[in-house]
């Protein structure tokens, strides 16, 4: 790490807990010394390290060894042949952060960076504004690190996500409003209280953690940049960081710079970025979210502008799917690959299906879908939409009667 730098005007700032440029409010980003990193970060150096996200440590913004979330990352990259067939594409991969450690979403990546850095900067209380997954991860990782945590969430979140924050003993504050309102309040609290808000004043460090998902995809593909990557968009931060991870690995000479396309996925009930992309605009209009994909329900996406830029630069596309399409896609992924994703995963798979069907992702190509969270946390969204168990008495006769009613040939004479 060399400094923090404004993405809008280029002004530089010291490596402190600060997130916006004093001049134009542009987001600050960590600057690295790539020439120095290039000397030590080779494929063999990376491959000799533990299977966690920290095997790419030089490209993550901590000064010393990480102290929080040291086991996070290196989730499976699954070759999804059955789903590929169902969607009509030659080759398909699932990057499965639904099984990330410890809280089953990609947020463990950003939180381990944010909290490790927060400790380096001397903080003892951490906080976040969250649509759920981030709250879970801050609560769990803060607990294991002995940090005090305050997590702020919309009060109407899925039960699973609320319990998954409470259990770690953190202070969970439910705000009567949607995420954008939680965000606004947290910006004001962060300005007044000296806490490390992972996605407010720690944001430059926090956001960089997402790159590890992209680094892993490249390495797990056998040091290749995927042709197509489909990424769910809430604030749009993950999409921009996946792009950055590909750029960095190419810049360091660890892979040859083959062309890549980054595609963005949103829910139709909260589609400010995909709407702008489809309309050919380079700015978005905020919306009031109304979707079952609550983890993506950000109506004023902070990285919306940069997401649109990345999609334009990489000739990627955006698309959105309705609540019914989200549920269908969750089922399709589960039935084809045995992966139970949360609603955001349904958004990603549903959008991939649409982009492949219309040829925006050509059928002859290869694509990676980023699944970022676990279906066990959003049971409410699919409960009642995937059938019910059939109940019988513990009797062989009843079982065979049931089987025969379905298909007589199934019954063993």
């Amino acid at each position, binding site marked *: 790490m060399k400094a923090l730098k404004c993405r809008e005007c280029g002004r530089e700032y010291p490596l402190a807990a600060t997130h916006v440029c004093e001049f134009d409010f542009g987001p600050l980003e960590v600057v690295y010394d790539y020439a120095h990193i290039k000397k030590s970060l080779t494929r063999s150096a990376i491959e000799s390290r533990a299977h966690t996200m920290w095997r790419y440590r030089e490209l993550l913004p901590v000064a010393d060894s990480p102290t929080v979330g040291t086991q996070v990352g290196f989730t499976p990259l699954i070759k999804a042949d059955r789903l590929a067939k169902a969607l009509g594409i030659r080759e398909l991969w699932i990057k499965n952060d639904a099984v990330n450690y410890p809280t089953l979403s990609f947020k463990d990546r950003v939180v381990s960076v944010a909290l490790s850095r927060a400790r380096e900067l001397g903080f003892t209380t951490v906080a976040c504004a969250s649509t759920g997954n*981030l709250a879970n991860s801050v609560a769990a990782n803060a607990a294991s690190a002995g940090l005090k945590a305050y997590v702020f969430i919309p009060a109407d979140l899925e039960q699973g996500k609320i319990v998954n924050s409470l259990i770690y003993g953190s202070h969970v504050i439910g705000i009567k409003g949607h995420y954008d309102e*939680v965000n606004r309040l947290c910006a004001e609290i962060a300005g007044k209280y000296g806490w490390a808000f992972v*996605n407010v004043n720690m944001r430059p460090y926090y*956001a960089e953690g997402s790159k590890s998902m992209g680094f892993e995809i490249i390495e797990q593909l056998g040091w290749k940049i995927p042709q197509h990557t489909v990424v769910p968009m809430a*604030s749009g931060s993950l999409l921009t960081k996946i792009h950055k991870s590909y750029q960095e690995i190419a810049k360091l000479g660890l892979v040859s710079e083959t062309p890549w396309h980054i595609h963005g996925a949103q829910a139709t009930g909260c589609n400010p970025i995909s709407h702008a992309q489809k309309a050919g605009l380079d700015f978005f209009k905020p919306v009031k979210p109304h979707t079952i994909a609550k983890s993506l329900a950000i109506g004023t996406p902070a990285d919306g502008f940069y997401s649109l830029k990345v999609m334009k630069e990489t000739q990627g596309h955006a698309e959105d799917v309705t609540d019914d399409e989200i549920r269908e896609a969750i089922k399709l992924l589960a039935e084809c690959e045995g992966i139970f994703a949360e609603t955001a995963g349904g958004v990603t798979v549903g959008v991939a299906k649409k982009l492949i069907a219309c040829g925006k992702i050509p059928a002859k190509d290869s694509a990676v879908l980023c699944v970022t969270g676990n279906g066990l946390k959003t049971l409410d969204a699919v409960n009642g939409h995937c059938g019910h168990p059939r109940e019988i008495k513990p009797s062989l006769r009843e079982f065979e009667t049931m089987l025969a009613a379905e298909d007589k040939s199934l019954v063993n004479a």
Partner: protein
Amino acid sequence: MASKVRIPTPLRKLTNNEELVEVNAATIGDAINELQTRFPGIKERLVDDAGAVRRFVNVYVNEEDIRFLENQHTKLKDGDEISIIPAIAGG
């Protein structure tokens, strides 16, 4: 018509560390101009050369984003609270 403007941390150097500033303005646009008169330099932080509110600045009147109201033409009444807030990453 007195409204209160909550000044975000990055701009408090310009307001002598004042967190809450009272303005007498009919619209958001007028309020920004009044702030500029009292705290020179603050306007260019909030609006770009074309006069539009900057990309990463969100302005709220009583907790509602002005982009859902009438942007800089949004009318103000006695007791309104204006917040100026930088965009935040996802969660």
